[in-house]
């Protein structure tokens, strides 16, 4: 016989998640920098340090990811912020795009 006291009053949702439509401002976006054959590695790392305020190690890591994997996510946040980042990257001559973060 079940111990009624020990039974949870509310059924636990395990694999199910509660779906509700996200407001547009809640959908996370990403800024992606793509590899190019022109900009020097020293320049790309410097842009990451200067613009995103990355430390030397983080900037080198992001630059190497761009170089070896072809792309790197350098920022995540709301769409407007990512558009500003993309525009700033374009000012520096880096090839950047934004897209919705995978969920």
């Amino acid at each position: 016989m079940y111990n009624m006291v020990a039974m949870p009053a509310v059924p636990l949702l395990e694999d199910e998640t509660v779906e509700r439509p996200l407001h547009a401002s809640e959908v996370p976006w990403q800024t992606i920098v793509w590899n190019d054959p022109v900009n020097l590695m020293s320049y790309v790392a410097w842009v990451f340090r200067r613009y995103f305020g990355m430390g030397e190690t983080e900037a080198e890591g992001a630059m190497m990811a761009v170089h070896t994997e072809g792309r790197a996510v350098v920022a995540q946040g709301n769409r407007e912020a990512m558009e500003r980042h993309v525009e700033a990257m374009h000012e520096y001559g880096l090839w950047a795009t934004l897209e919705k973060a995978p969920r």
Partner: protein
Amino acid sequence: MRRFEPAAQSGTVEALVDQDEARVLRSLAEQLAGLLGEAGEAESSTDTAVDRILPDAYRDDDEAQAEWRRLSRRALADRKSAFAQRVADDLEPAATNPGVHTVTLDAAGALDWVRAVADLRLVLADRMGIREDGDEPSDALDGGSDLYGWLAWMQDDLVRVLTLLEKPQ
């Protein structure tokens, strides 16, 4: 361009340049400023070099990309054109007088320079068919390969000097 050095006055950069070098770089910068000026007037381009210096912001969303172009392209092209024009203006005295000159750049000027140099390299690379890692420059541009190498040195040296200036003294 012989070298860039951090100047005694904190936050400034001195570029040592002779007249011939100043003429070449000024001419390139003026061409870039012109190219960007024209590109900013148009909604789209058929020039792959322009597409590279004013790239798309959205890859898979035509509607968002069209909106981006409408709202951002013109202003971005104008700002980039101003970076290039600044380089041309800074070089004017050195380009019009014989000898070796010191061009002093403040922090904002050095930032304009490094961004204009990046765009110049992107345009030259496109004109010489450098599209992917490992592409060798074609001889489509007379002396293009040397210019491209010279600008690479400039990009690296400006980064070196700007990094020195950013480090706490």
